[in-house]
């Protein structure tokens, strides 16, 4: 007995020391103490820095507090950490009330069962399902189930081109894949390349694997939700994309090291490349490199002649509520506020996002032509990424396989269609094993 008492006393003493030794640590992470007056909100990094996000969101959250009396504790989380943080939150149940997710994760996160499904009552509470653009709303979760997320910001890929370079070469913006490659070849000279890609980023690579395959009419998952990575349409689509670096040589091999989109955008903005594929929130990054708004134009990422006109996946950010929130009503009020027209108008502008609400005109750029182009791409030339639970595994396995293939091409090797098929087979096996 004595030992146990002593051990317990020692433990308590030791814990007390550590607890008092550092009580300065503020804990704003998971504390969802009742009362309904405070919400914890995890925002994803949309602006130029975490700090920038904080500055943009704080006045809005203040407005929300003024209107409802509900205080929102904000934490902006970088993309590198977001997935791990969500995982630990899901695992432990120690979670924020409301959070942002990449909309491509929606179906995967839905399958964890940790998020609140938006049933019709919940939709009524946030202003009705009908207020959202259908394209955006489709990304909310697996079809046929109550979605676990609602759209917050819309994004789409576009092909940015340098107007001066095109004009000097006597070229007009491409409307087909073949034209794009021909233009890029003409524009590749010396240290300038026709195109730049984030060829070392597995997320970007998986997106373009999807888009190129979709242009060929191929699907990564069958109707039964099983992976079908090795179809010809997919292999050819990926080969076409790889060939920009391998056969057409319009992409600098160095791009194989670009593990995020901004590095490619910087190359474009600094005149090292004539075209870049990017989501529509690139404008602030381009401007920060000193490229003027009127120096570049945007067209839809073209499909090959005869292919399906798909230029982007439905990209963007959705909002979810954790099921175990103790402040469900407050959380719904907050989602309603964030997806209201007034808040959206201001946030779309700051974060260069496309509207996810019906009947709202894009405000992310003052350039009407650009806004129209993206609006058209988003509504008419988009396709959602596979809405299946294994979507995140598709992104990581296929994206990483593409990273390796680009790396091989960049370091002088060749990647044949057989190689692509072999890599996709491995990726598919990994997805199957995890399922």
């Amino acid at each position, binding site marked *: 007995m004595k*030992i146990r008492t002593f*051990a317990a006393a020692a433990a308590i003493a030791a814990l007390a020391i550590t607890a008092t030794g550092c009580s300065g640590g503020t804990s704003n992470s998971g504390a969802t103490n009742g009362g309904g007056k405070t919400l914890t909100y995890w925002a994803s990094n949309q602006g130029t820095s975490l700090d920038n996000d904080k500055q943009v969101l704080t006045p809005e959250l203040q407005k929300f507090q003024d209107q409802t009396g509900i205080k929102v504790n904000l934490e902006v989380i970088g993309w590198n950490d977001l997935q791990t943080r969500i995982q630990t939150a*899901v695992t432990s*149940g120690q979670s924020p009330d409301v959070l942002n997710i990449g909309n491509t994760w929606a179906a995967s996160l839905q399958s964890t069962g940790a998020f609140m499904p938006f049933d019709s009552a919940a939709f009524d509470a946030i202003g009705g399902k009908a207020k959202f653009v259908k394209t955006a709303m489709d990304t909310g979760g697996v079809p046929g189930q109550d979605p676990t997320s609602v759209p917050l910001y819309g994004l789409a890929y576009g092909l940015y081109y340098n107007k001066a370079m095109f004009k000097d070469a006597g070229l007009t913006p491409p409307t087909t894949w073949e034209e794009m490659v021909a233009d890029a070849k003409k524009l590749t000279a010396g240290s300038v390349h026709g195109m730049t890609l984030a060829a070392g980023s597995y997320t970007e690579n998986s997106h373009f694997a999807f888009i190129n395959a979709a242009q060929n009419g191929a699907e990564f998952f069958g109707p039964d939700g099983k992976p079908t990575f090795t179809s010809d349409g997919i292999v050819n689509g990926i080969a076409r994309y790889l060939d920009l670096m391998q056969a057409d040589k319009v992409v600098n091999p160095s791009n194989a090291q670009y593990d995020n989109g901004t590095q490619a955008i910087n190359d474009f903005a600094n005149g090292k490349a004539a075209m870049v594929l990017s989501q529509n929130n690139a404008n602030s990054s381009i401007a920060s490199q000193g490229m003027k708004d009127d120096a570049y134009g945007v067209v839809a990422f073209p499909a090959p002649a005869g292919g399906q006109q798909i230029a982007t996946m439905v990209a963007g950010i959705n909002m979810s509520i954790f099921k175990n929130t103790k402040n469900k009503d407050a959380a719904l009020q907050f989602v309603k506020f964030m997806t209201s027209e007034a808040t959206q108008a201001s946030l779309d502008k700051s974060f260069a996002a496309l509207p996810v609400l019906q009947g709202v005109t894009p405000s992310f750029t003052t350039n009407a032509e650009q806004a129209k182009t993206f609006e058209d791409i988003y509504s008419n030339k988009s396709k959602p990424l596979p809405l299946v639970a294994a979507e995140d595994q598709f992104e990581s396995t296929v994206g990483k396989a593409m990273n390796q293939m680009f790396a091989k091409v*960049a370091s002088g090797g060749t990647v044949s269609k057989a190689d692509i098929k072999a890599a996709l087979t491995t990726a598919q096996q990994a997805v199957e094993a995890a*399922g």
Partner: protein
Amino acid sequence: MSATTTTRKSGASAKAPRGENRKGRRAGWWLPYALLAPAVIFELVIHVIPMVTGIWMSFLKLTKMFISNWGNAPVTGLKNYQIALDFNSAVGSGLLKSFLITAAFTILVVGISWGLGMAAAVALQKSFFGRGFFRTLFLIPYALPMYAGVIAWKFMLQKDNGAINHFFFDNLGLPGDRPFWLIGNNAFWAVVIVAIWRMWPFAFLMLMAGLQSIPNDVYEASAVDGAKPLRQWSAITLPMLRPVNMVLLLVMFLWTFNDFNTPFVLFGGSNPPAGDLISFHIYNASFLTWNFGSGAAMSVLLLLFLLVVSGIYLLIMNRRKDRA
């Protein structure tokens, strides 16, 4: 697990205080246990219980469908292990490849670090002008926070704006294209070099400390006998450093084999297959695919491997010591 036995056993010894406790006779038998208690509690909470939980996880189908409610995760028995060890499947062959890469990585890093550490320790054994300076200099990579050093290397290994390619192709004027260091096959050499840079000062430090405990007159005696430096090294230094080496090699082996930080900081999110060290591989297997049961099974396999290797190593070493 054994730490729990410690506390439990203490109850038994309470009934029969043992004769050999004479050193603690003034204090009473419980004092050593009381002294150990805080350490035991922290070890339990941070190391032992999580490890047991991890082992338990490895028998569950703990994918994202079940992660939010562990109680419902189905027990799959050895299935996670079967998948991890089926080297014909994508998962198993990936793990095997990663294991082999890590083994090669460990042999190179530990071997070369030891060699460099030994060379430096011997070179700085005799006092000369500037010895203190070089000793200090050599310790800096060890003193630097690990991520600061690795980030500097990451910058140096960039293809277009890195110092390494600049040195070889601009300063030395080598012909040909600048290679990538952080993607493709060169990534292996990159991570090896960075790990050596981090590790060898530790070997140097330990060996230097060991050399200091060798009395000078041993060398003087052998010098009188006409022994050459190389002979002195193999006849005196090496045997005298045996206890140091025994510990040093084991510790370096464990640290290197488990190294997560170096590839994590060096490669970031996009790890090339050539630099796919096993800790990093398991981390990705768990967190990227949300398959924590499978990740736990791989970790347990890794732990078993390390236990077996360390056990055999210690056994051989102790036997040799007994014979000597």
